[in-house]
């Protein structure tokens, strides 16, 4: 069915099986018939770099026009060698992303690197070394790889589709060239032997007899000679093609997800409620095709947050956020979010990504008015929750300087020296706020968005004592402390916890998973399903048709049986299988075999 002139195979593919039985490919790579290259009409250019045997034809320059060059480039791109090169290039190109800090993961490290390396840093930045996985060169490599893959796989799929409906190739005239061979004699008629062999080959899987292994044809070759042609393992190429096509589909699904996804981050303090809408998020990242109006405006309230730590080592053991979710038009429902267990609400997944303390403070200005009250999230810096934060107080009574408080929260404080404290554990056993005081202009009125965890010190002055050293305030829960310079007072009211939540929606996820699993299944099939062809010829007991096969010399009165096998790739199970079939056909007894054969089976 699959005639040699129609077969497609990528340049450089070293696979005797793909060539069909009648070519000389089994004789070794030196022969290199490569009928596909000739069919493509390339005059010399088509046979590319590796075809050593074909003598270079006389150059006919005008033939290779733009179309010819395009053809040549396409053949090169879809060749095995270029695919291999691109794979290796992809592996190399992925490495810098772990050597250099990446914008997408640790932007602060990138900034630090740029400061430390003023010479090379900007160049590396320009060349995309801090954004390796979205850089032009990395994208070029994998896109070329996928183009090469598609260019290679689609013609092969077409060919395989035809082969699936085809019959095993007819028994070649000469069986002496194949990697696996066998012979023997039988007292039965050739036709009986051939039909017995066909029945044996059609028998199916051991234990699963109804699942066919070999596709078998019996041919009457005339002159009393009968032959059997059998082929198995179409699934191998199917698996191979499915694997590669699934990879393409996976890439498409990931790209589609990038376009349609949204991801938001929000910090919720115990007792607070957040609404699923763009306005309430701290950060939002979305694909071009994501419509913010599609967000279902559910609300989520953090009722309680449990954090468990190992009493000896202080290592984290469990984080559980107890929330109440209210979807529009529905009753409030309780929910639980844990680290490995996101909550799904209206198609949006809510992940617990972080937690910490948000000390609730009240700041009164010089006039005694409440200028600020509420919880302020302090970001934990280490395993014992030494947390850093900023309290900005812009809304002071008229004429007074604005106030900024910067410092640390220590959940289990311990004084280690004058003006020196540290935290000894993550639980709030003895919380302490250690703050320095700034006053002046916070710079919030310019309309420029500010980081809530940083103080812009440009318009501020730090409060100092009489000796000129900065003032450090320490406040415990329930205490009220005077601010220096008569700025007012600060009260540490309570210490609620906060959680950092990621809200995320990616409609492509089921597809990504499906294609990944399909790829895995295809890969396993393509690696473990053997593809084999077996031929068996039963000729009347005269050496006429077998033409002096080696090993066929002990001719009896019955039938001379010769057999050969060919496999895709290096298949060490081929020869044992041929022997087994031959033994069964000839009713040979296993014990006659040399003992070593069983061992070689393992290789």
């Amino acid at each position, binding site marked *: 069915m699959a005639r040699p002139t129609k077969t497609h195979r990528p340049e*450089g593919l*070293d696979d005797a099986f793909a060539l069909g039985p009648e070519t000389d490919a089994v004789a070794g790579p030196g022969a290199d018939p490569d009928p596909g290259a000739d069919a493509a009409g390339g005059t010399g250019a088509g046979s590319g770099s590796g075809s050593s045997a074909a003598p270079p034809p006389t150059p006919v320059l005008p033939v290779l026009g733009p179309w010819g060059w395009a053809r040549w480039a396409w053949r090169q791109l879809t060749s095995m*060698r270029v695919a291999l090169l691109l*794979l290796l290039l992809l592996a190399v190109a*992925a490495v810098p992303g772990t050597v250099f800090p990446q914008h997408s993961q640790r932007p602060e490290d990138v900034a630090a690197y740029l400061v430390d390396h003023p010479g090379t840093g900007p160049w590396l930045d320009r060349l995309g070394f801090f954004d390796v996985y979205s850089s032009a060169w990395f994208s070029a490599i994998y896109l070329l790889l996928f183009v090469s893959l598609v260019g290679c796989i689609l013609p092969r799929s077409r060919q395989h589709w035809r082969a699936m409906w085809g019959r095993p190739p007819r028994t070649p005239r000469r069986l002496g060239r194949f990697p696996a061979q066998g012979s023997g004699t039988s007292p039965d008629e050739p036709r009986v032997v051939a039909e017995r062999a066909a029945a044996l080959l059609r028998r199916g899987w051991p234990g699963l007899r109804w699942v066919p292994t070999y596709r078998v044809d019996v041919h009457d070759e005339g002159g009393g000679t009968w032959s059997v042609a059998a082929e198995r393992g179409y699934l191998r190429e199917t698996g191979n093609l499915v694997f590669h096509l699934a990879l393409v589909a996976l890439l498409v699904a990931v790209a589609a997800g990038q376009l349609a996804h949204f991801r938001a981050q929000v910090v919720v303090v115990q007792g607070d409620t957040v609404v699923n809408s763009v306005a309430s998020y701290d950060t939002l990242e979305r694909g071009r095709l994501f419509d913010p109006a599609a967000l279902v405006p559910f609300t989520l309230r953090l009722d309680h947050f449990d954090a468990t730590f190992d009493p000896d080592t202080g290592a984290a053991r469990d984080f559980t956020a107890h929330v109440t979710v209210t979807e529009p038009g529905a009753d409030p429902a309780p929910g639980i979010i844990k680290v*490995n267990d996101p909550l799904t609400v209206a198609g949006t997944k809510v992940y617990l990504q972080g937690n910490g303390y948000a000390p609730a403070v009240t700041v009164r200005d010089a006039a005694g008015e409440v200028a600020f009250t509420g919880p302020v999230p302090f970001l934990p810096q280490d395993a014992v929750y030494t947390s850093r934060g900023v309290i900005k107080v812009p809304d002071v009574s008229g004429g007074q300087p604005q106030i900024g408080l910067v410092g640390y929260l220590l959940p289990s404080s311990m004084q280690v020296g004058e003006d020196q404290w540290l935290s000894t554990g993550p639980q709030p056993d003895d919380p302490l706020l250690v703050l320095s005081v700034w006053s002046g202009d916070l710079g919030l009125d310019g309309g420029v968005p500010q980081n809530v965890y940083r103080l812009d010190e440009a318009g501020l002055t730090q409060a100092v004592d009489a000796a000129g050293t900065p003032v450090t305030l320490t406040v415990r829960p329930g205490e009220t402390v005077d601010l220096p310079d008569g700025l007012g007072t600060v009260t540490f009211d309570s210490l609620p916890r906060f959680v950092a939540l990621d809200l995320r929606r990616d409609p492509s996820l089921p597809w990504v998973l499906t294609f990944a699993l399909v790829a895995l299944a295809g*890969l396993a099939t393509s690696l473990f399903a053997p593809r084999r062809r077996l031929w068996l010829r039963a000729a009347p007991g005269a050496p006429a048709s077998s033409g002096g096969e080696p090993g066929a010399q002990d001719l009896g009165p019955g039938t001379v049986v010769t057999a050969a096998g060919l496999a895709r790739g290096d298949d060490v199970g081929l020869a044992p299988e041929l022997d087994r079939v031959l033994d069964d056909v000839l009713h040979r007894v296993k014990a006659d075999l040399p003992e070593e054969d069983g061992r070689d089976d393992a290789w």
Partner: protein
Amino acid sequence: MTPGDLSTLLVWAAMTAFTIALVAYTVDLSRIAEAAQRRPRQLARVGAGGVADGVAEAGAGAGVARAGGASARAEGIARTTTALGIVFLLAGVVLRGIAAGHWPTANMYEFTLVGVLAASAVLVVVQRRRFIAFLGVVVLGIGVLALAMALLVFYVRADAVQPALQSYWLVLHVGVAITATGVFTVAFAASVLQVLSAARAEGRSHLAAPWARADGVRRALVRWQVTGPRFAWLRQVPDARNLEALAFRLNAVGFVLWTFTLIGGAIWAEHAWGRYWNWDPKEVGTFVAWVVYAAYLHARTTRGWSGRRAAYLVFVGYGVVIANFTVVNLYVSGLHSYSGLR
């Protein structure tokens, strides 16, 4: 004695057993090498070994259950102590899991134990069919070194795990990754032997021709050239084609497991971090190893790349796997910073 202490003791016992097995394998290999060196001298030696040798080897390679000169006692000791080591290590891993209260694949110490267990188990399966002393030397050499590193450098007290690791994926994702590493280790040893065997059969040695500048170095090493008498034992191993087939089977199994590692890791990352792919250093390392092994599978079927060059890709791939386990765990900070060492 607590289960944790007992586990540590068993791991020490396993390392001792593996060390004895390693010595036995080495003794066996040296006996084979000695016998192989003696034999060509008794025969008329043609030229300087090389091609003439290779012809003789082709016949000797196939179908020999025990290599010539091999010591039955050394092989028996190697088999027994390897099995004993596996039993000790398995008991150590189980007790470790009991002590820690979770599947013991949560830090580098535990990874290493399970990885050595997987590699030695695969070794035993491969050796069951045919005893190849060289594979035992390479795999147990790596295994003993890894166990020593585990006990002396990577050791951490058995303890419960942090919330991010509390998932059944700790069993699937990490367990499969470690098993794949064990399979790759044996495949790597087979590929090394394949390259040596092919080089000897083809009479090809880098030490044969003079080196331009560093010829002194070459002369110092020339006794070790693969075509020389020191490597005459290579006639006793299966030929390069059979070794390639063995390495391919193991690598194919490892590659499928590695693919599952990537997919399982992505699923877990989706649960834990809300992103199935982060380009985290560990993920990149796993991806690079996957791509290199994929390149190996393609190289096998590419004209001009099959055989020796494809085996070089196995070396690169295995190097990436090991670097991904050691360098990335110890020196690169990322989301996978679970070595337990600070």
